């Protein structure tokens, strides 16, 4: 058994404390992202989910300049960005993407300035790359606690607004007619999304943050027939992709003669992308088969994603 594990994982994989931290922080972030992501994908707010990662990263580099902790910068800028997006975004899908774009553009401009000032004062080497991609292997156990606590907070607030949020997502008109606070749930959702994305961007980088937020939920929504089913599938897919990606990245050091390991984000994203493509093909085939048979299927996944 031990030999088998060693053969699969390369020497020292399970003993490495870095791997432990990366695996646990990856799992926590994958679960928080998957749950938030199911709502994000259903609401068609993938752009906001991606943009908030960059916005919070701008806050992170700004915080470093004025001597605050990166966590404060990430979460603060994420929440502020989400607030502005919600404020200037009209309720239409199209206007929302535009509002997201405006906020993102301004944040990236500030990022350029902060990184420039950071490098001229001689502190931030490789900061650009860190901001772009991030790294799961450099996180400390201290980050894990902060991520777990704030992640739980985001999940709790999502759970509290889940019912009106779902109704407002699937049918805003019915929700409004029933007197559900559509605007308020939308804003609360944006704030929960901001906290979740800021945390994952800090812990695992903006690139993986978007991948875990959108990929597993999108794949799950193609396959699952109910929202709880999609939530569970998304969590499992996200955690599995993260762990498998860490394993492969660790292994890749032993591939080939050069002893270059490939970045963990590359493997995780590749697995997630392949999973989405597979789920997409499966769902399309299922839809064709249902269309070929005379019996009409009632509640397929199109209802969920519509």
């Amino acid at each position, binding site marked *: 058994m031990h030999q088998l594990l060693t053969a699969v994982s390369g020497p020292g994989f399970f003993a490495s404390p870095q791997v432990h931290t990366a695996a646990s922080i990856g799992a926590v972030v994958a679960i928080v992202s998957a749950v938030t992501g199911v709502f994000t994908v259903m609401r068609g707010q993938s752009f906001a989910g991606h943009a908030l990662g960059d916005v919070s990263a701008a806050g992170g580099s700004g915080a470093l300049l004025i001597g605050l902790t990166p966590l404060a910068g990430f979460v603060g800028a994420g929440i502020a960005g989400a607030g502005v997006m919600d404020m200037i975004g009209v309720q239409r899908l199209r206007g929302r993407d535009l509002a997201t774009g405006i906020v993102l553009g301004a944040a990236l401009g500030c990022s350029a300035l902060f990184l420039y000032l950071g490098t001229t004062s001689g502190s931030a080497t490789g900061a650009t790359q860190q901001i772009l991609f991030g790294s799961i292997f450099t996180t400390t156990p201290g980050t894990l606690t902060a991520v777990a606590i704030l992640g739980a907070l985001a999940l709790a607030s999502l759970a509290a607004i889940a019912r009106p949020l779902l109704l407002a997502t699937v049918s805003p008109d019915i929700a409004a007619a029933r007197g559900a606070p559509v605007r308020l749930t939308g804003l609360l959702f944006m704030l929960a999304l901001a906290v979740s994305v800021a945390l994952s961007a800090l812990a695992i980088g903006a690139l993986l943050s978007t*991948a875990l937020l959108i990929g597993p939920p999108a794949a799950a929504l193609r396959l699952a027939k109910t929202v709880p089913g999609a939530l569970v599938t998304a969590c499992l897919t996200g955690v599995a992709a993260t762990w498998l990606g860490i394993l492969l990245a660790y292994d890749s050091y032993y591939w080939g003669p050069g002893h270059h390991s490939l970045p963990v984000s590359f493997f995780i994203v590749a697995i997630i992308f392949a999973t989405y493509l597979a789920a*997409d093909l499966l769902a399309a085939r299922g839809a064709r088969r249902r269309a070929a048979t005379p019996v009409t299927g009632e509640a397929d996944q199109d209802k969920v994603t519509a």
Partner: protein
Amino acid sequence: MFSGFMTNAWATATIVAVVAGVVGYFVVLRGAAFPAHAIPKGAFAGAAGAALLGISTLIGLAVFSLLGALAIGTLGRRGRNDVVTALTLVMMLALGAAFLSRTTQYEPEIYSLLFGQILGVSTTQILPIAALGAACIGATTILYRPLTLSSTVPEIAEANGIRGYRIEITFLIVVALATTMTVPVTGALLIFSLMIGPPAAARSFTSRPALAMALSVAIALVTVWAAIAASYQYNWPIGFFVGTLAALSYGIGRGWGAWRRTRNGSGQAAELPRQPATDRA
């Protein structure tokens, strides 16, 4: 401020602003802000790949931006557009991360590829930029009618035999072309600001397409020129000025729109003709 290498900066910036203003008008009209962000940012990975292979950056950018446009267009045909855009973007960036892990000589260039190095444009770079820019403007001019129709009233466009899918792919390819020429100059992240802010601002001022497009180009030009001047003066990165000025122009547009609506009473018909209910399902 207007001598020597600065002449090149002013010339390229002007070309970039005109292209961004024209293409950006349709980006905003089609609600394609996310692809307009994803294609340049993902194309950056192509530059990293080109550096690894030792070929021209421009080729790497062209290949990756075209691949990105095609992936978003074809996969988005069946799945959710925004989801597909996000996944295509992260996949391209992940490839970029893999490329970068294989090379060490590239790192100092990342910042300039992301945030632009307009002040360091050489004379030999201007010609390809001008050619690609002319191609973008030409394609947009030819596509003007079908693009406008399918962006505002897709049903009527389909009835006239304009295939929404083909228009979408063609448009994304135009964005990819614009990306290839502008990324080495303005950076992957800030061409996006120019494609969103000025056109969105222009559309708050007028609902007539041709006028809005002209205004969009004008605002983009003012933004870029002011950014170059400020960057030269204060020695801060040009990206900061482009990003914030573009957002500022949008803010002014929104403010002006709000002021006009309150002056016109309850804003009857001020909002309706500009944006018909054509949200993608």
